[in-house]
């Protein structure tokens, strides 16, 4: 009904635009009324709508607020403008200048005029309405873009890559961006601060609260040690400025990368869940109020330990609270069960997203932002057995690890590059060492570690007075290539009697000055030796 009244005013404005000369020609007294609203329950509305032509105001047999207003303004004749059965405006005329009544010819002319003006006016009204709606839609879209921009700007652009750990994360925004966030803070003593949180609102306001909370969290994480103290400090800092009815749930913990412990505190967020290497999972509990509700809160702490192969899983509400078409919720029990049933590390995220799609169906419109973080403690090869004949002049230049997977030998090559400039080897030797390291790493990933990304290849670079040593170790899982294998036969390969593959070990042996293999049950090491030109310590 509000729309109807608005259109009525529009019609009045149209009338006012007519030049005065027209009023003179029509022979009417000029009137000037203030805007007249016809209330939805005013009987005049139905009367004008159904009149079928000009209405003599004096002949109306009832009283109503609008009729009184029109009479008070000196209106004599009302010509309703009706389009598709709906009253969209009135042309109001005062008495004729001659003080005679309007003739039937006048009325016919006015009825005909109204019949032609009404549809044109209706079209103009619709266009104006569409323009207004388009502006509104654009405003909403723009706000969504701003919220998305803020959100994405404050999510980590790069994940940390600590040695012997694999960190994976997924942030999948809903159509209307929520206030999810996660981040990592590198701390002293080989520790990593991890937080996952959610602001209880959507759009730009939530994104702004997210951005400021995250900044306060990062600062507090670097200053304070205990996760509980960090959340307490953050709560006290954000609480005074928190908008009404908004608060932030957040889990913050410190991962000790050497010991595998995750000590955490929880401000009303979902509990962390650990998926065990051999299957199974367990949630760990710590309680505390969401951030921003009340100052002076304390936060309980708890600790979980990750053994090699275990995965720590953190997540926001949207995953457990997703609904299927029947209205059932995905739920925490299913989530915890799937964390135990799925693969480890990054693969767990794909597994859970696939399970979620199984549950919701593929045309599910995501209700809220989904944020998940999976941190796996990698399985590293057992330490090298004591080397009885280690020369006294040997020193370790670098030790690094590479996750197993096709193409990852290039990660080992990249890590190697930083030494190659400093070492006294000519270009020919450098190229050959590159090829040998690439091939040995490929063998280790493919044969030793079965290309499983959670199994790492360890690369150690040693300098000796007259040689550079590179040791490449895997977990000794699969069939190993051995140093006494026969050389590949190109003629047999071309005749199709031998696989076209199988060049790796041959290439390694041809590229380096010496190659040794050390093997135990859980570690297989290939040692590459490259003589240095100087003869003395070439590094």
């Amino acid at each position, binding site marked *: 009904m509000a729309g109807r009244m608005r259109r009525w005013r529009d019609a009045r404005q149209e009338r006012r635009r007519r030049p005065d000369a027209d009023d003179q020609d029509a022979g009417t007294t000029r009137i000037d009324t203030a805007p007249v609203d016809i209330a939805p329950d005013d009987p005049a509305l139905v009367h004008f709508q159904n009149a079928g032509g000009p209405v003599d105001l004096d002949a109306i047999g009832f009283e109503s607020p609008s009729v009184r207003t029109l009479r008070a303004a000196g209106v004599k004749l009302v010509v309703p403008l009706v389009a598709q059965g709906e009253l969209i405006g009135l042309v109001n005329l005062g008495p004729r200048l001659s003080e005679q009544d309007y003739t039937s010819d006048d009325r016919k002319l006015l009825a005909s005029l109204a019949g032609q003006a009404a549809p044109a006016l209706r079209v103009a009204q619709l266009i104006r309405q569409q323009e207004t709606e388009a502006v509104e839609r654009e405003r909403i879209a723009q706000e969504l873009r701003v919220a998305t921009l803020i959100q994405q700007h404050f999510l980590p652009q790069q994940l940390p890559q600590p040695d012997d750990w694999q960190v994976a994360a997924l942030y999948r925004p809903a159509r209307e961006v929520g206030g999810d966030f996660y981040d990592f803070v590198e701390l002293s003593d080989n520790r990593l601060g991890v937080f996952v949180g959610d602001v209880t609102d959507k759009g730009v306001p939530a994104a702004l609260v997210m951005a400021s909370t995250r900044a306060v969290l990062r600062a507090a994480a670097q200053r304070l040690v205990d996760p509980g103290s960090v959340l307490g400090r953050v709560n006290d800092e954000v609480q005074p400025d928190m908008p009404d009815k908004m608060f932030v749930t957040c889990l913050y913990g410190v991962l000790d990368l050497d010991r595998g412990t995750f000590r955490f505190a929880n401000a009303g967020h979902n509990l962390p869940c650990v998926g065990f290497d051999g299957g199974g999972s367990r949630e760990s509990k710590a309680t505390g109020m969401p951030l921003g509700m009340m100052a002076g809160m304390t936060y309980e702490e708890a600790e979980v330990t990750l053994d090699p192969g275990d995965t720590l899983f953190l997540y926001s509400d949207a995953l457990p609270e997703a609904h299927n078409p029947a209205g059932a919720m995905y739920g925490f029990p299913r989530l915890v069960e799937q964390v135990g049933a799925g693969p480890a590390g990054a693969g767990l995220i794909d597994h859970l997203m696939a399970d979620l799609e199984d549950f919701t169906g593929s045309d599910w419109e995501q209700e809220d932002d989904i944020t998940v973080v999976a941190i796996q403690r990698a399985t590293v090869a057992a330490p090298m057995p004591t080397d009885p004949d280690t020369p006294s002049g040997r020193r370790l230049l670098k030790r690094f690890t590479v996750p197993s997977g096709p193409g990852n030998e290039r990660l080992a090559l990249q890590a190697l590059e930083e030494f190659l400039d400093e070492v006294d080897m000519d270009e020919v030797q450098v*190229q050959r060492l590159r090829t040998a390291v690439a*091939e040995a790493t490929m063998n280790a990933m493919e044969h030793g570690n079965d290309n499983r990304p959670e199994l790492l290849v360890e690369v150690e670079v040693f300098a000796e007075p007259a040689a550079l040593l590179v040791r490449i170790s895997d977990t000794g899982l699969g069939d190993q290539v051995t140093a006494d294998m026969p050389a590949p036969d*190109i003629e047999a390969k*071309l*005749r199709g009697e031998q*696989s076209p*593959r*199988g*060049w790796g070990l041959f290439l390694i042996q041809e590229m380096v000055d010496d190659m040794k293999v050390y093997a135990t049950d859980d570690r297989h090491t290939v040692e590459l030796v490259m003589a240095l030109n100087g003869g003395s310590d070439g590094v």
Partner: protein
Amino acid sequence: MAFDAEVSDRNDGVAVLHLSGQLDGQAEAAMTAAHDQLLTQGASAVVLNFADVGYINSSGIALIVQILARAKADDRPVRAVGLTDHYKHVFEITRLSDFMTMYETEGAAVKGTATLTR
């Protein structure tokens, strides 16, 4: 850099396979598609241009062996151009070079008559 293999037909049915990027296991699909294309075109000889290849590993060598095996069966010469000294050495020790003549320029490789580099 992703691998790419592009076929261009030069004179007298000699097809040039212009390779770029990293020739490793992940290059297999592109390499096989390009090789199939030049066989469909009925190439009488194949020139592999390695000028834009920065990295070749044992899986890449296996892909070349497959091309050589097919060429040997069809009695179709394979020539190579644009290899760095390092990869020339690799092709020599693996004896791939016994079945694939190496040239200094693509023009010479297409003609197949210029002085050999070995």
